[in-house]
């Protein structure tokens, strides 16, 4: 079931990379309001994990979530429209960067609260299986999240009830400006092992390595295994958030950043294609993204009269504020 085609994997990595670069440009041009948390440098993780999932499987993402949503198969055009706050966006412009979701393809959403989504995913996977739909799930979170109690509670629940969720820790070395060593007593894998959850470290810069580790875990989970954790070591190439482009925060040396950027998942996976194949993918990705940006910018802004639409799924109408 899992997709080992290097070109497809490369395409995903490249798509995310170029999507993010275009999104940053749209932040600069004022088309995306509020900024984004760029996923640059970490693309191999979302791409590798999702390549090992089935269409029906579920994922949850983070504040740095564009890669997760795209890798699971969301339409880049509707995703970009969402970032631009358009009615044509995945969430009708209601969610934006930190809440982009596409439940139709199993993306239960990016999530702006660090550590919050693994418990949600665990419940969703469990419920699908109760209903006879034997999906598995993958939940992405950062190295900062492993210090959130609610995340560790979710580890316990998933392990106790043997819910097949892959806990994917994207260890990019920092939670905003806080280095891992300053925040994580013990180790990340040790936190999983404490709950009897098998844990493994993988090179997050190598998309294929991530895919393989995930595929093996997913196979065990489909066979009746419980949760597993993958710690993907990676590096955030850009700012924590685009606001950092304006306000310099001194927490990484230029040398460290240069070193980190030297292992680029786009190049690592790209090297597995012939130059011609790589160029072809790159060109197709540009075409796709040209169209995505055009679609996004052409989309209508939501009508303010609908500002309270969807506040209640039950159809309850909220009283207005004046």
């Amino acid at each position, binding site marked *: 079931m899992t997709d080992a085609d290097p070109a497809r994997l490369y395409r995903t990595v490249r798509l995310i990379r170029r999507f993010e670069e275009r999104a940053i440009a749209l932040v600069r041009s004022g088309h995306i309001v509020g900024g984004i948390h760029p996923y640059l440098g970490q693309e191999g993780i979302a791409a590798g994990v999702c390549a090992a999932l089935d269409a029906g499987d579920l994922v949850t993402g983070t504040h740095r979530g564009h890669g997760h949503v795209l890798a699971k198969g969301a339409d880049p055009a509707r995703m970009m429209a969402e970032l631009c706050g358009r009615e044509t*966006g*995945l*969430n*009708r*412009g*209601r*969610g934006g960067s930190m*809440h982009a*979701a*596409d*439940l*139709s393809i199993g993306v*239960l*959403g990016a*999530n702006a*609260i660090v550590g*919050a989504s693994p*418990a*949600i*995913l*665990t*419940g*969703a*996977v*469990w*419920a*699908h299986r*109760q*209903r006879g739909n034997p999906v598995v799930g993958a939940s992405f979170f950062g190295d900062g999240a492993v210090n959130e*109690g*609610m995340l560790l*509670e*979710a580890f*316990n*629940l998933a392990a*106790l009830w043997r819910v097949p969720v892959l806990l994917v820790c994207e260890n990019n070395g920092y939670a905003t400006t806080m280095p891992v060593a300053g925040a994580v007593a013990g180790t990340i894998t040790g936190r999983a092992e404490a709950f009897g959850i098998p844990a493994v470290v993988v090179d997050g810069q190598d998309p294929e390595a991530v895919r393989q580790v995930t595929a093996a875990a997913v196979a065990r989970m489909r066979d009746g295994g419980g949760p597993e954790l993958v710690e993907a070591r990676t590096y955030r190439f850009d700012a924590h958030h685009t606001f950092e482009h304006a306000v310099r925060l001194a927490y990484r040396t230029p040398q460290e950043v240069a070193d980190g950027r030297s292992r680029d998942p786009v190049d690592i996976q790209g090297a597995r294609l012939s130059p011609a194949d790589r160029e072809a993918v790159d060109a197709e990705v540009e075409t796709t993204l040209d169209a995505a940006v055009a679609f996004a910018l052409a989309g209508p802004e939501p009508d303010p009269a609908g500002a309270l*639409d*969807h*506040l*209640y*799924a*039950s*159809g*309850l109408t*909220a*009283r207005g504020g004046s």
Partner: protein
Amino acid sequence: MPRLSYRKALTRALTDEMTRDESVFLLGEDIRVGASNVTPGLLKRFGPDRVLDTPLSEQAFTSFATGAALAGLRPVVEFQIPSLLFLVFEQIVNHAHKFPMMTGGQCSVPVTYLVPGSGSRTGWAGQHSDHPYSLFAHVGIVTVVPATPADAYGLLASAIRHDDPVVVFAPAAALEVRDDVDFATLAPVPLGRGVVRRAGDDVTVVAVGHLVHDALAVAEELADQVSVEVFDPRTIYPFDLDGLLDSVSRTGRLVVVDDSNRSCGIAAEIITSVLERVPLVAPPRRVTRPDGAVLPFAPVLDRAVQPGREQLTAAIQLTMKDRS
């Protein structure tokens, strides 16, 4: 007619809804044994996949319920003590409540949060005696506080069928209420609809939850001096303003008695909503917990902090003397 206790009514609603709809399931602490005496027997009847005992991981199991709801089930989460809602405030308010809007209408989160034993249980003191329903009215989560066994049944059933999160507060002081009930008439009670429990002409008393019974008692006691109408909102968010306006526009006087803290409580909301719409012939009054209340342990102090019949009697009498 058979007698039905409030507590048994909750059990019956759970049983009926679980029977009716396979997607309903329960989770919480010690619910298999039924420590809070609302869920006994359900494990045997519905099996361990639908009656889940959880570890003491309130945040995770609350969000687990959110996820299960996103996947099409209808979880009912029992919380042993009301302040556990503080612990999961983030999971309810920032996630379960916000998903439909944030996803642009892609999903619903039909979870019921059941607190059997809210408010003071004499002797349980500071951290176990909260009545935080007004907090949920503020954040905009459907919130019900049934007063009678029939309503406990009907509002819990409606909560479970509702497509958004609903918090059900079952006040400890109401759990032992018993009524004569024709079981055949037990039915879902519509959310957001109040009811006049006692008709009257001079003053409308809005009473929440267990205080409905106190209000009725006070109304009887005062019957030869003043004709008191008692309005039970049943749902405090969304509030049945139309129902209440019917009453208040007849009586012209309004007293609210409510067991939550005074500042920014539901009593303030009710009074403001009424006064935005209709004038009163006397200033409104409210009988509540004090501002920032923490219930002290000693029973005499605990009682002093809760709204009671004496204060309500005084408020009604003062209102009858007042003229705007």
